[in-house]
């Protein structure tokens, strides 16, 4: 049965008909799901050792703060999910998460703070903007801040931090082997430390340049996948946050994009139609190239996949399934294979010129 366009616009897996940029809306929805999966509900409590002393006033009225914020969180999350006033409710949701963070010093986490920032900035971002520049600036700030803090500590320069992390805390077998080979030298630790500081600084700069943002995305993906492969660490859910934020930087189609193909029944077209929940792509069957239309080639398939909701939801679900079904080390191996495989498969997209397709 066909679904009317009015209902279609409010389906939770559609992101094209709301007042938020499609990629930003998907980012916000996935971050909301991530928060709930990580038990964020339990974080929403009355203030306890707040950053702002005024919030202690609520301790005279137990439950008022907690249940007010829980109500606002649920309502704004519900409306965001069903594409109602998404910018407004994105901001409300972000303010809720920020207020919960401000209400308790002992539960401060960078991976929660960044989620609140993305909700707020995502809501403030106009749909008419070319790209979510506020989120680019946010990520640039995150990487500059991280690099600056490291660079001002001598432990990062002389390898002490990395040596302690890998040898004492992680007891990393590869690092132990490296230590043996290099006669217990700190050089491997120094190299990893310098690499981390350098790449964070470079990412910060690249994110500020319009023509270099694709390289920034490649470096972000490479850096975090490298760290994850080496340490198995997700840093709370900071890794997940960053990967989800990158979704908003993808080339999301505006309106319908039409490709020309010899047949509508090729595997790639079938896959694309399966994952294209926003109905963004359509195909014209033609043997000859028509003036102005683009013949559907592999590079278009890769680009088009990065503009579909189903692709990202599928990756999110795959990662979740691996975490539920497998224990380490198998879990880590499968995640590395899935992450690196996807990254390498799509890497040609980041080094080509922007696509040239017809949109209606």
């Amino acid at each position, binding site marked *: 049965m066909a679904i009317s366009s009015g209902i279609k616009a409010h389906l939770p897996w559609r992101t094209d008909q709301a007042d938020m940029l499609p990629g930003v809306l998907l980012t916000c929805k996935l971050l909301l799901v991530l928060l709930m999966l990580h038990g964020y509900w339990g974080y929403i409590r009355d203030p*306890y*050792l707040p*950053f702002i002393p005024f919030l*202690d006033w609520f301790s005279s009225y137990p439950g008022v703060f907690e249940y007010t914020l829980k109500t606002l969180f649920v309502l704004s999350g519900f409306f965001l999910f069903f594409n109602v006033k998404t910018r407004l409710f994105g901001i409300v949701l972000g303010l809720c998460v920020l207020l919960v963070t401000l209400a*308790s*010093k*002992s*539960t*401060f986490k*960078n*991976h929660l*703070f960044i989620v609140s*920032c993305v909700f*707020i*900035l995502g809501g*403030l*971002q*106009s749909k*008419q*903007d*070319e*790209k979510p*520049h*506020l989120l*680019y*600036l*946010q990520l640039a*700030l*995150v990487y*500059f*801040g*991280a690099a*600056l*803090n*490291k660079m*001002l*500590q001598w*432990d*990062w320069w002389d390898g*002490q*931090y990395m*040596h*302690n*992390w890998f*040898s*004492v*805390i992680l007891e990393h077998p590869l690092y132990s082997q490296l230590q043996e080979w290099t006669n217990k030298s700190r050089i491997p630790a120094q190299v990893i430390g310098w690499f981390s500081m350098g790449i964070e600084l470079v990412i910060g700069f690249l994110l*500020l340049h*319009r023509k270099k943002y694709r390289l920034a995305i490649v470096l972000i993906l490479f850096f975090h996948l490298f760290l994850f492969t080496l340490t198995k660490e997700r*840093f709370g859910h*900071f890794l997940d946050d960053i990967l989800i934020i990158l979704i908003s930087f993808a080339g999301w189609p505006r309106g319908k994009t039409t490709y020309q193909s010899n047949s509508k029944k090729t595997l790639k077209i079938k896959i694309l139609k399966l994952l294209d929940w926003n109905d963004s792509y359509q195909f014209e069957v033609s043997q000859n190239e028509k003036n102005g239309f683009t013949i559907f080639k592999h590079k278009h398939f890769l680009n088009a996949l990065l503009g579909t909701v189903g692709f990202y939801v599928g990756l999110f679900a795959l990662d979740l399934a691996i975490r539920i079904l497998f224990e380490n080390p198998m879990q880590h191996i499968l995640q590395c294979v899935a992450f690196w495989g996807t990254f390498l498969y799509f890497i040609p997209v980041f080094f080509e010129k922007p696509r040239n397709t017809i949109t209606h």
Partner: protein
Amino acid sequence: MFKYNRTRFHYIGMFFLFLQVLGVCYARFVPERFFAWAPYDEQTHYHIQVLIDEKPLSDEEVTKRYRVTSQRVESRTIHNIFSIIEQYESTYGSEDWAKVLVTYDTNGKGEQLWQYPRE
């Protein structure tokens, strides 16, 4: 940067980002690293011990008191933990006259002590 519309929402967003820049700058003048985008810049193994009326609290009681685990590895600066303890003991727990001792080792450079009240 990318093309964008200079709406009032854009300016509010820029102001929100500016506040975060202030947070990063402010962290240069204080030992704590809240709102400073400083994740995983230190690794500190610590253990908090609390005495009230000369009786030690259990690890569970300490965890419940500060809402931070009584002993573990803190992946941000240890001064964040000190800040939490100081705030608790100077507000909610000021009548307890608790003596707090934190033994900690930052980046494997050797054990150090921190205590409250400070001498």
